[in-house]
């Protein structure tokens, strides 16, 4: 375990206008980890993701990335420091081709790596290669999700933020995407912070997990620990399973 976490969030509070979305959140992600954040719809998971990226900025608290305080930096500067996000709802540039989406993703990366990075993206998601000249808006949901992740990877991030990569996808595709995440983590040592609603897969994949309820972190532990907890099972699994 490194002495200093790659990302440390402490006592962060975020507001949308007058509505408080985060109520004193503290968590950390260490180099080389996959950390997941689970919780119900509207708990504030995506808000935390966006707050890390400075959009909106935290009203109180501190966010430290790689030893630097990034709490008050503008979003585009944060993204230049080696954080990339595949956000909620994918946010594909629908009127741009797959290739152009990837090029946008590579905005912050060294252009010298571009060809190699494209190659890596296409190896990871061969479907995208077939559709490279197709407009983002015409892709299927799963393909869009792949594109969103690939686009984030084009930035050559040290920390990858993934917001609900399984949303609305068929189980097989989810499996594929989670496989890709695991592979990136194991082979490239990529640090991943993953927000998920489907607790089962996320907790199985992650080294550690946090549970968020109403803008607060209520539980944390390793993936297996959390998976075993009664409350988690009740909230996320039993509704459907029993």
């Amino acid at each position, binding site marked *: 375990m490194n002495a200093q976490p790659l990302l440390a969030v402490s006592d962060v509070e975020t507001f949308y206008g007058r509505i408080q979305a985060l109520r004193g959140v503290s968590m950390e992600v260490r180099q080389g980890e996959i950390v997941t954040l689970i919780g*119900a719809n509207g708990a504030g998971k995506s808000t935390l993701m966006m707050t890390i990226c400075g959009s909106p900025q935290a009203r109180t608290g501190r966010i430290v990335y790689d030893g630097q305080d990034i709490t008050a930096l503008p979003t585009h500067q944060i993204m230049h420091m080696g954080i990339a996000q595949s956000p909620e709802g994918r946010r594909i540039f629908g009127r741009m081709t797959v290739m152009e989406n990837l090029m946008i993703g590579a905005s912050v990366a060294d252009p010298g790596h571009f060809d190699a990075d494209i190659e890596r993206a296409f190896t990871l998601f061969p479907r995208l290669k077939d559709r490279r000249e197709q407009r983002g808006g015409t892709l299927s949901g799963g393909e869009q999700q792949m594109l969103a992740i690939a686009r984030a990877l084009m930035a050559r991030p040290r920390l990858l933020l993934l917001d609900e990569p399984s949303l*609305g996808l068929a189980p097989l595709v989810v499996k594929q995407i989670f496989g890709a995440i695991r592979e990136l983590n194991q082979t490239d040592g990529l640090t991943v912070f993953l927000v998920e609603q489907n607790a089962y*897969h996320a907790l199985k994949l992650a080294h550690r997990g946090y549970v968020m*309820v109403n803008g607060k972190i209520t539980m944390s532990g390793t993936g297996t*620990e959390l998976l*075993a*907890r009664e409350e988690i099972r*009740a909230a996320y699994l039993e509704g459907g399973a029993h």
Partner: protein
Amino acid sequence: MAGDALLEVEHLTMRFGGLTAVDDLSFVARRGEITALIGPNGAGKTTVFNCLTGFYKPTVGRITMHHETGDTFLLERMPDFQIPREAKVARTFQNIRLFGGMTVLENLMVAQHNPLMRASGFTFGGVLGIGGYRAAEREAVELAEYWLDKAGLMARADDAAGDLPYGDQRRLEIARAMCTGPKLLCLDEPAAGLNPRESEELNRLLLFIRKERDVGILLIEHDMSVVMGISDHIVVLDYGAKIADGTPEQIRNDPKVIAAYLGVEDEEVEEVEHEIEETAAAAGGEGTA
């Protein structure tokens, strides 16, 4: 009257360009019952609502509303604003749509626009202070007070709607919909983002509406645990198509539903369940982290 078909959806299909958001969906919602429309995120639930309430015109299909008077309304043929007015279908929105800069009471008054408009002689009488507008307005305030009371918002009546906490806003939106005098109330994820106490208050309000009022409720919910407690009848959507339809008991045990919710394939369900049991058993001894 409970148990009659109130809303009949037949072969509803909605396509956006190449994307089929709702695929040949048929179901029935009954008077005096809570019907839940559930499914994972992106399953097409909200699209169904938008078709029901006239915001989208369905590509294919028929949506019929039956009043107890015997009148029927084909919703897919009506302009959106006539659906609440004539067919008596009211709705709420996933991302709450209150009139944030108006007070709670004003929100409920706007909901009674059509009867009040008539009472004010389409404004002309109202401006001149003639006709029965004053009495009508008093009645409208009384109805608003009734629903404020039921929604537990009496104390906030004169505050701006945008100033209320989330849970109050949700209930206010329902109270506002009820002020239109609906026969079918469509709620789009009313429990999303609520804390347990607020969820409790919401459930109470919904059960009251079903018990006291002869209306049907159609409910979209993402979270099954919320739905199981209050619904009489559940329709499950996945990828825009119906994968199950039945009582909560039936739905609870339907492997297809479990699979959709866990995000795994059907044949994996048992395996996954088993795995969870095992981890739980293994971790059970150590206590919790």
